[in-house]
Structures are given as C-alpha cells and as structure tokens.
C-alpha cells in the first residue's frame, strides 16, 4: 500500500506549487516561516538524558544512555558519541520495521555531523583513563510521528537531551574505575546548535518543509549553525541540484530561521 504515498496526485502537486508561487503555503505559513516548536526535556525516566520535540505534527524523542568502555585507537583521549536513528513504522505509512534504511542512516549522520563539528561537547572531558576507559554515549533518535523536516526536529531534540544528560562521578584507583552512586552532574555544553532545512520547489526555496512539501520538492539542503552563526555542517539531498546563488540564498534563509530555534532552545537550556 506504500505506493499510495509515493505517487503524488497532480492536483495536490499543482496546488502546492501555485500557492508557493504566490508566496504562501497550504497551511498558511509564508515561505520563510517555521512551524511552532515545543521542546520538553527529561521525559524518559530510564534514560540518562532525554527530550521530546514537537515541530508542527512531527514528533521526535531522543534518549541517551552512557556506558564505560574503551576509546577508538586513533582518538585515545576522546570519549565516544554514537548516534542512531529509528523511523518507527507508526510514524508514517511508508516506514517499515527492520534494519535502518537509507533515510534513517542519513538522519543519524546529519545530526551526528552537526554535533561533532560544532564542538559543543568537549569529547576530551569524556575521557577517564586515556586509551583505556572513556564514557561512551549512545544517543537514540526515535521518530514517533513524521510530518516532514525530521532533520531539524531530531537535531533540536538531541541537543536538548544532551543538556538533560547527567553523568556520574568516578573514582579512579590505578586502572580500576568505580562509579560513585547518586553523584550526577550535567555535562558542560559550549553554546548551542541549530540545523535548518530548506527545500527547493521549482525555483523557490522554502523553510521547514512539511511532509506534503517534502514529497514534491526537487532537492533539499540542511545547514547547521552554532550560536555565533558559523556554519558547522551542510547536507544536500534530493535528485535536483542547487545553483551557487541558490545555496547562498538558502544559507541566508536558514540563518534567519535559526534565530527561532535558538530562542526555543534557550527556554530549556
């Protein structure tokens, strides 16, 4: 039955494009307007850090668990952050159970790249004994409901969950590492991160596409900024291409939209 959702009705496609040409969208937003954002933290009691983000009808939960383990041989003094994303079958009719597919892997990679290259977490602080014992963080993204723009929602949720994360203190005796119970401290984060997705429909660029717009878009670009407005990561996907000027415009649009994300994140961070 998933073919029903892959084939977009001609009338639906034309009505979206006609609206966008007039500078409006089907749900009444303007082209550069973000949907309403709602962020909650600490909603999963069994996780060590968690957050839920609602972006319009899109709902994403992120949970983080920690573990003591060995670092990668090439970065002996750095902790490990492992991101994975799961598109739950209940989130959208075309999502199927099973191992992560292309979209889930891309989602995890884009969020991961934003976190990694913005340096908001000092991974050296996650190190306990170099090349022996470090903290390993497992960040799991669960998409509960998909109405487009999973990149931005997941990235916001991951950041809020990292802020919510508390690590215990450890006692080091020789090579033995012991976790001290009931001694939880939040990890220091340097600034914030905002990923903004821009979709290209015909010759127009729109911010924060919903699922109906994602189905008809030609291409999309996700730009991640840190709080100073520096670009940390860019991901482009979709079949069509962006011209140089379009990328410049997309970055300007994304930068303006990131203000709203930073405002919402400030409420919980």
């Amino acid at each position: 039955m998933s073919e029903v959702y892959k084939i977009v009705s001609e009338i639906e496609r034309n009505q979206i494009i006609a609206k966008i040409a007039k500078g409006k969208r089907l749900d009444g937003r303007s082209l550069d307007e973000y949907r309403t954002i709602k962020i909650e933290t600490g909603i999963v009691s069994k996780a060590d850090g968690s957050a839920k983000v609602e972006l319009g009808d899109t709902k994403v939960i992120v949970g983080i668990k920690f573990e003591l383990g060995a670092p990668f041989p090439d970065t002996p003094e750095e902790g490990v952050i492992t991101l994975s994303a799961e598109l739950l079958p209940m989130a959208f009719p075309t999502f199927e159970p099973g191992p992560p597919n292309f979209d889930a892997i891309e989602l995890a990679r884009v969020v991961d790249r934003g976190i990694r290259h913005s340096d908001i977490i000092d991974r050296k602080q996650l190190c306990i004994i170099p090349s022996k014992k470090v903290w390993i963080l497992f960040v799991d993204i669960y998409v509960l409901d998909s109405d487009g723009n999973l990149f931005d929602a997941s990235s916001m949720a991951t950041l809020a969950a990292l802020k919510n994360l508390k690590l215990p203190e450890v006692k080091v005796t020789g090579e033995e590492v012991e976790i001290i119970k009931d001694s939880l401290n939040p990890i220091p984060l340097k600034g914030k991160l905002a990923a903004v997705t821009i979709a290209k429909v015909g010759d127009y660029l729109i911010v924060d596409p919903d699922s109906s717009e994602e189905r008809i878009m030609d291409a999309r670009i996700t730009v991640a900024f840190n709080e100073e407005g520096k670009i940390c990561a860019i991901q482009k996907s979709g079949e069509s291409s962006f011209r140089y000027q379009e990328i410049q415009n997309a970055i300007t649009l994304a930068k303006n939209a990131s203000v709203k994300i930073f405002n919402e994140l400030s409420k919980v961070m």
Partner: protein
Amino acid sequence: MPVNFENNQIVSPGELLAEGDYLSGEGSFKEDNKIYSSILGLAVLKGKIISVIPLQGPYYPKVGDIVIGKVLNSSPAGMRVDINSLYSAAIFPSSMNEKGPRSREKFVQFDVGENLIAKIISFDRTHDPILTIDEVGLGKLVGGRIIKIHPTKVPRVIGKKGSMIKLLKEELTDKIKIGQNGIVWFSTNSDAIEDILVAVLRKIEREAHTSGLTDRVKETIKKLKEERLNVIRRENT
C-alpha cells in the same frame, strides 16, 4: 422488546442496545437474541434495524457511493485507483467513457497521479471495488484543490437533504464535489474564497456532532467574508 438507547446516543463497544426481535445493522452484532454495539458511535434505530454510525474510522466502500480517487497504475487492461480506503479500486476500459452534454460519450485516458470522481458499481469482501465514470458529472478532475476530511463527517458536509452543500455552492463556489470517501475537490476564482472554504470545511469537521450547524456555518461565512472585505478596504486606503 425494550430498546436501551435514545436515537443518536453515543454508545461504546459491547454495550447492550436492545433485546428481542431486532436486526443488527452496521456497527452492531446479535448474540442470544440481544443486540450489542461493536464500535464507538451513535446508535440509530430505523424500523427494526439497529445500527451504529462510527464517530471515526476509515472509509468502507459501498456500492453506489461517489468517490474521488487517485490513479496509481494505468495500463490498457485498466487502472488501479486509490480511494482513501482499506481497499484500492479498479476501473476497466469499458467504463472509462465520460458522458458529456447530449449524452455524447468520450473515452478518457488517465495518467498516474491524476484524480477522478467515480461511482462504485460493485464491491464485496471477495473482490476489490470496481468503479465507473460513465455518468453525468463523473470523470477526470483538472485543476482546483483537494482536501481530505474524515470520511465519517462527510454526511454533515452534505447536510440534511443537501442543505449544507447547497449553502456552500450558493455562498462560495459552485464547483465543489464531495466524495463519500472523505475527499473534497473544489475550484474557486479567488484565494480569499478558497481560504474561507477551507476554514469552513474544517469547522464542519470539528463541530460535526453538534446541531444547528448549517445556520452557524452561514454566519461564519458571512463573518469571514466581511473580514476579507475589510482587509481589502484597508489595503486600498
């Protein structure tokens, strides 16, 4: 032979509706001469048949219904059409003739992704619904806009003896078609009318269970139209 409910009362699954010589209709079942509800909905007694109209749920095809669909697959042998239901429908070339004015027939070819309004001519649980477009008013839909509403709310958009649809046609646009499967197609001349129509349809969907809806919708249309006029006036001055 007692009946345990008033007409249009909300009942839940398993609720005893009646005892004795009654027949179970849609949304109810009979056991030991007692009739129970099998879904959450409004109980209705019509003659001797007790049925429950669901509050929510997918569209279940019925012979004779007019539906709006989307073409999924097209071949010389026929087409597969999505009708927003558990079942996808089929349409065969023999019934792909549109009936125009003076009963002139024209064979229509469809592409994947195109929309059509059609009538269900045959359906039971052993085979998928079969559609036809050879009746006046049926056929390919071009242009305009499509929105989805809950299939269970469709009777309210049509209204008693078509009162609501008549109101919408008089006040807003005469190019509006409603499929029993919850898909509404319309075409308007202006964006303002389009926005009002969408708002009104959402209002009908939201307040479908209340009475006196047609009158309130009439007032809403009047209010929204005046608001639009004021906006235009302000822009002009």
